[in-house]
């Protein structure tokens, strides 16, 4: 079910009511279309070279034939860049670069032609310019969406508890590490201040102070790291009565500023490979903890719900316990 969520992000609710920010489908679709378009152009330029060169008015030059052949091979490259990756990335930019080359070639060719050939070449140039506009639009839109993805994650879950209990549980930030696995501990240091310690790669920790910036009982809690945090971050959790009074909807939005470079890479690791997935796992465990009092564990998933662990399951049989492994 897709709908406009309360915090203005186009979102998709999946199983368990866990909600995910949806992919920007129009730009994905456009990128796929351009991929198939490149494949068609490449095939035509290579397979029906004489006809293509006659249509575009360049059938009088041997150099133009070579340029056309190179362009055909290049189009196949664009097709691969656009169609092979699961999500559209830099593929559209390769098309923009190719368009620039084509426009330059057309410009040069126009200087030397007259009559019918010049007319055909003009149409070709106009067509290439139009395609360039579409390519540029797609590339920019895909890039903008990717940037937004990196900075903000958003998820929601419905829990079978009344809004007061859910608000009270979340309001005590010291409860958060029970279900947010990337946190080692959170300690309240003042009325609105808290000290957070998170796991970092290679057994290290990252620490920062956070403060509550907005607190509306049974409705919303908003916090952010105070100045000086190595990974500036902020979060908001909203609580709403579920339809029919069937529990409480909990919607979480977490933003973090990735300054790029080395630190950017660390941030990515800090939040796991897929921050979105991590927040979904957190909320699944939150539901378990607040409803049942425990994180559900099986022999194959001893640490409870975690998509990373699901990819690498142990057999469903007891393991000899080693220390505090569980």
């Amino acid at each position, binding site marked *: 079910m897709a709908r406009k969520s309360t915090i203005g992000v186009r979102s998709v609710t999946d199983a*368990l009511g866990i909600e995910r920010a949806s992919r920007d489908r129009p730009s994905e679709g456009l990128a796929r279309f351009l991929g198939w378009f490149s494949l068609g152009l490449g095939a035509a330029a290579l397979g029906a070279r004489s006809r293509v060169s006659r249509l575009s008015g360049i059938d009088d030059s041997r150099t133009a034939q070579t340029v056309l052949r190179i362009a055909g091979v290049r189009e196949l490259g664009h097709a691969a860049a656009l169609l092979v990756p699961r999500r559209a990335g830099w593929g559209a930019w390769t098309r923009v670069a190719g368009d620039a080359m084509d426009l330059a070639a057309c410009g040069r060719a126009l200087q030397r032609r007259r009559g019918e050939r010049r007319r055909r070449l003009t149409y070709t140039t106009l067509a290439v310019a139009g395609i360039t506009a579409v390519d540029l639009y797609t590339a920019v839109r895909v890039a903008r969406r990717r940037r937004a993805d990196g900075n903000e994650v958003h998820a929601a879950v419905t829990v*079978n508890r009344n809004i007061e209990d859910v608000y009270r549980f979340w309001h005590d930030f010291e409860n958060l590490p029970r279900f947010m696995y990337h946190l080692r501990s959170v300690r309240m240091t003042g009325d609105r201040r808290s000290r957070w310690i998170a796991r970092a790669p290679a057994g290290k920790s990252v620490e920062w102070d956070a403060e509550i910036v907005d607190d509306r009982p049974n409705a919303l809690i908003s916090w952010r790291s105070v100045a000086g945090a190595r990974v500036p971050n902020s979060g908001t959790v909203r609580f709403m009565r579920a339809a029919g009074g069937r529990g409480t909807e909990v919607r979480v939005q977490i933003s973090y500023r990735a300054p790029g470079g080395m630190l950017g890479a660390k941030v990515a690791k800090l939040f796991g490979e897929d921050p979105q997935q991590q927040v979904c796992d957190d909320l699944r465990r939150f539901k378990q903890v607040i409803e*049942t009092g425990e994180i559900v564990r*099986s022999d194959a998933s001893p640490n409870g*719900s975690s998509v990373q662990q699901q990819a690498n399951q142990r057999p469903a*049989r007891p393991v000899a316990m080693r220390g505090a492994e569980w």
Partner: protein
Amino acid sequence: MLANCWIAPNSLAVEDVPDPQIRNPRDAILRITSSAICGSDLHLLDGFIPAMRKGDILGHEFMGEIVELGQGVRDGLSVGDRVVVGFPIACGDCISCQRGLYSVCENSNPNAAIAETAMGHSPAGIFGYSHLLGGYAGGQAQYVRVPFADVGALKIEDDLPDEKVLFLSDVLPTGYMAAEMCDIERGDIIAIWGAGPVGQFAAASAFLLGAERVIVIDRYPYRLRMVRENTGAETINYEESDVLDALREMTAGRGPDGCIDAVGMEGHHASAALHAYDRAKQAAKVETDRPHALREAVLACRNGGTISAVGAYGGFIDKFPMGSFMNRSLTMRSGQAHVQRYMRPLLERIRKGEIDPSFIITHTMRLDDTPHGYDIFKNKQEECVKVVLKP
């Protein structure tokens, strides 16, 4: 401890594995006194349920004695209690559990994200039933860990033998729920595909719930004889007669009021060609389940009747007769049994002597012989219907 482990499709081994330990506050550890092989275990053996791993312990029908309890177990259980455990693992606290839909508990599958990819939403975790449904060790073993023991384990306080109460764990509630979902009214005719333990219990339950006639369909004469003798049902052998013709004839054209599919994903068809068609598609993985019984049940059912599907399906079927289903106002209900909802009332019926589920046991063997038990059960040798294992 010893445990029956899945190694690969059609390969099992009884292995020595570590004993289970308490992992969570509401856990119990059971010393198993009896367990059983379920028809749905054969889907695991045959490799039709995805996400199995070498070394997984099987078994979701078991009972035993509590030897250890977590700190947080909420009510009435103590060490030394004799209990029977329902096969779906259920927390008791989510909205599904509180509505009695225990087999779709929202919390008990730690691998819910895999199940969501395959099914949209995740059902409950199940003991010994693939990593898709949680990756829990099963009970064909000497010991087992029971999560949420305060919801899943039913204390047996009197001296009823294991054989009479063991099947409260799965097949008796499953058969009962199959009949209940038909909303039986006095005078109804109920047809049941499959004369295995679930089909036989569904037949017995349909009579308990007021059906006037019950017709059971299978191809093994010994099973049909058994269900006739134990429940009073009529039978059709689908290798001898055309099922749709026979049902039309037996009900004088009306068709059964309720049709129960107690077969599931590995159905057979009397026509070798039709069976080969679905079997080939299943092997090529363009269809995961062979729905012969379900298709036939839809076509057989009277206008406005109910299909109750309790045989296990794992994925996708095709050639579902949707036109017949829609145009004739049929209803379909289904589900893994919400065992915890039925255990107490069915125990009461057993106590009163209204039903004695031990009639389906044909074999009792030692845990060491489990692979042999699967073998004769799967290949329908020695007139096998139900194997009980004694650790």
